[in-house]
């Protein structure tokens, strides 16, 4: 069952128009697909992208699996990603990770809570090393995070809608805006 609406397809066309080849629109198109499919990429999503970009499905799968940010499985409503690389590590990232593991009752290996609200994962350097420890949820960074702030954040997120990454609008005047 196709999930892409005419508007989604038009968005892909706009992305395609930015590059010399259709294939180059693959990464941005996968971001669109991930948004349309609720935060992850089931096989059908990759199929739809393959069809629209006129690529073999195997090519699309090969690319999608190379990149860690295309989710191959559904995730919780909010993905809590805590940086565990060295700058964060020496300023308490491990404590923060263990605190969250205890609090949510899941392991920070990408497990999701039973109610489906949170996925917890340790990630590599987020490029916020000067404000360690750093945490990312959706497209938002939280920096210099303490256990108390983490608790408050988790509380706040419980009732918040999930944040999905949406590819950007180009401002080229001749392009349609969506």
């Amino acid at each position, binding site marked *: 069952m196709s999930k892409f609406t005419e508007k989604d397809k038009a968005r892909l066309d706009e992305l395609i128009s930015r590059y010399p080849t259709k294939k180059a629109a693959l990464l941005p198109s996968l971001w669109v697909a991930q948004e349309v499919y609720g935060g992850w990429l089931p096989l059908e999503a990759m199929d739809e992208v393959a069809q629209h970009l006129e690529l073999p499905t195997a090519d699309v799968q090969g*690319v999608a699996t190379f990149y860690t940010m295309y989710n191959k499985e559904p995730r919780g409503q909010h993905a809590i990603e805590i940086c565990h690389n060295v700058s964060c590590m020496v300023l308490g990232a491990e404590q923060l990770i263990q605190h969250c593991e205890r609090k949510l009752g899941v392991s920070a290996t990408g497990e999701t809570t039973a109610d489906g609200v949170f996925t917890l994962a340790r990630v590599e350097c987020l490029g916020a090393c000067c404000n360690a420890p750093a945490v990312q949820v959706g497209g938002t960074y939280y920096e210099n995070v303490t256990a108390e702030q983490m608790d408050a954040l988790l509380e706040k997120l419980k009732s918040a809608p999930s944040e999905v990454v949406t590819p950007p*609008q180009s401002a080229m005047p001749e392009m349609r805006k969506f």
Partner: protein
Amino acid sequence: MSEQPQLLYKHRHVPGINTIDVWMAHGGYENFKKALAMEPDAVIEEVKVSGLRGRGGAGFPTHIKWNAVPKNRDVEHYLIINADEGEPGTAKDRDLMNGLPHLLVEGCLISMHAIRASKCYIYIRGEYIEPWKSVQKAINEAYEKGFCGKNVLGSGLDFDIYTHLGAGAYECGEESALMSSLMGERGMPRMKPPAAPLPMISGAWKRPSVVNNVETVSTLLPIIELGGAKYAEIGYGSPRSRGTKLFSISGHVEKPGVYEIVLGTPFSEVLELCGGVRKGHTLKTYIPGGSSMGFAPPTPLDYPFDYEGIPANTKTLGLGSGGLIVFDETTPIVPITQRLVDFYHHESCGKCTPCREGLNWLHKIYGRIVAGAGKESDIDLIWDICDSIRGKSFCALGEGAIWPVMTSLLLFRDEYLAYIRGGKDAMTDLTTIGL
């Protein structure tokens, strides 16, 4: 302490500087206009005189790259901006894109003019949603004001800038892998010259392409403003390290942050600028330029901090991407090195054997040492594995991965031995780090 002129960060604290109106009120896009009135080769000449070297890691002179681009416009040329910033400890490009997006956009326009490119792709790492929105908004504003688009400012030239979001792969920062990723492929590196043509001649889509770091092109603004010769007067170290550079300083210092520092400033002053090692603690070691540069000993501290100045005995490669990570005496070196080994193991693209197999082996050995089951012979084994990756990996990721390992062995062999002999009890509980 010497004065640190702020060239990139001149307007960093001006409220609303991320908007085009405030940017223009502070002289924004004047440097682009000035460059546009010059011949492309004259811009390259200024860059040559300025001594600008790439700020993305390798420190390669920018004008050499630019001069290798064909000087005609028969086929489309591309400027590709490397905003993939994934090196542990490096956080400067993000700061720049968040706070000063027009600095980047204006820098892109100047570079595009110099290399005769009409299209620019800014490849931003997937995690950087906020910088991406910030930069895209700045591009949109530049289009509205006519700095981007067709026949820009009546010059007859077209300049289009696009953002392109990556999706989580450190390897995509390597320039040939970045181009593969931009073209919709897996982010794996490709053959380099002399086995393959220069990307400046046949790069993305087999057309002339230049890959430059975010900070490199941003530095064009002060170069055009001051002129290359005046810019080259800034800097007190080696004649080959000129101007200012951004450093993200993290770890055990009083005031971590991104600082703009004149190249060649004594390292002790750099430490002073960020408040020094946190109170009550002493310096154990530091990583001068992003994790693939390895650990440096706590002395000497008075050497010039620039591309040439880093003491040779540290066996580090230099300034790298400008990610300075400071560690005080509470830092357990073995688990820290393990984290870096695991990082590179995780990020290895798997294309070549020395890196893929070697890092997998190192990952296992470190796992066993930290679990309390290390053997004394592991130390020599680690060294041998590093030696077999050194100079034999297909791209610089493999090479970068071994520097933190080899330098930690050179500097802290005793600590490894104590860990191995003491078994699990000697191990630092990771949850106590940072207290």
